[in-house]
């Protein structure tokens, strides 16, 4: 019983320490809403603030994207090619700003957020900034019906040109 209580106390202490480990770091974003169209690029900045007494080292900032509506497949890699940044040490009271560039590749409502976690993060929760809500308007990007005149027209023009040339050559040869 005494051994069990001791283990519980150690676990509670560890959890408290883990929660406090990132407590000195906070994340802010420069905007919380983006309205854009399908295929458009946009960007926002996140700032990591070290309000602790010591230097914050080995922090990793990670960008994530999630759909706020069911039925929309989201691959965050398609939205941004550089989603993980390894931050330089941040001195006590200092900040580090990261610019995130994204491209809206799906239509709908999405949540974009930045999580900061220490490199030796085993078991510790990340520090997460406010969610940026991204609303992407649907846009028609391809008129499928329009391909037929092009798909037939280009070979037809080239075929007529090649045929006309061949006919002319044949006439020239037979005349000679």
């Amino acid at each position, binding site marked *: 019983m005494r051994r069990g209580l001791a283990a519980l106390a150690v676990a509670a202490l560890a959890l408290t320490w883990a929660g406090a480990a990132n407590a000195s770091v906070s994340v802010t974003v420069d905007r919380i809403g983006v309205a854009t169209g*399908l*295929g458009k690029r946009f960007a926002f900045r996140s700032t990591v603030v070290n309000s602790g007494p010591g230097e914050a080292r080995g922090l990793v900032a990670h960008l994530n994207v999630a759909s706020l509506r069911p039925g929309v497949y989201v691959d965050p890699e*398609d939205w941004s*090619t550089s989603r993980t940044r390894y931050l330089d040490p941040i001195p006590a009271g200092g900040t580090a700003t990261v610019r995130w560039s994204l*491209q809206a*590749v*799906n239509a709908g409502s999405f949540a974009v957020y930045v999580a900061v976690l220490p490199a030796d993060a085993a078991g510790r929760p990340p520090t997460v900034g406010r969610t940026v809500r991204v609303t992407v308007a649907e*846009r*028609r*990007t*391809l008129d*499928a019906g*329009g*391909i*037929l005149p*092009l*798909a*037939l027209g*280009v*070979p037809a023009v*080239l*075929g007529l*040109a*090649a045929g006309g*040339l*061949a006919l002319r*050559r044949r006439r020239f040869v037979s005349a000679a």
Partner: protein
Amino acid sequence: MSAGRSAPGWWVVLGQELRDVWLGGRGPALTFAFSLILSAVAYLVATNTALNFLEQREAVGLIVQVSVAMGGILVVIAAADAISGERDRGTLEALLLAPVPRRQIAAGKLAAALSLWPAAFLVALPYVWFLGRGVGVVGDAVVVGLLVGTLLALELGALGLVVSLFAGSNRVSLALSLFVLLALFAPTQLSAGAQQGWAGDLMLRANPLTAGVHYVGRVLVDGHSLGSEADLLVAPAVAAIVLATVALLASGRMHLRPGGAR
């Protein structure tokens, strides 16, 4: 054939070869066949009404990759015929008797073979515009296609010319050139898993064809900037310079018989 007083020999050869390729019917016929292939590919991808934004970008990437690859095939077909074709038709002797240095003959023939690439690229432009205008990648597609296609056309043209110089017959020259071309393209069909790791990455970057095709994909499909993946263009650029130099140096040994007997 005689070189004009002011025009350099390779220029005279180029003019003659351009007439042969384009007025002789081979160029228009190959370009027509190329447009049929592009039409089939573009029709198949564009009529998929469920095509989302990314898949449409992939479609543009596919059209550019097909254009670059087919443009390379057109150039290699023309270049592989350049010398061995003259041998087979019995016209090489007359060509060698012309007062034009052999390297200039080869340079003129290589330039004429390369003329198929800009023609193919012009044919591809309407398809690129149609598929890419809605997703804003037309400009990138034109730049990337022109850059990669020109490098690949130069190296494949030079390769075809080297093979044509030493091949015993035109049939052997064409077969060998196309075999090498297919062997270079084969790694593009490997699964993504096989291209991981240092060996896969090395193969991808060292092979000028896979490197060029991947550059197209990275820029047009993955949305990377033109400069961020420029290291993928090192192999195509080096191959183009080296093979063109080898072709011009080797053409000094151009003989009536491939073995060197006059």
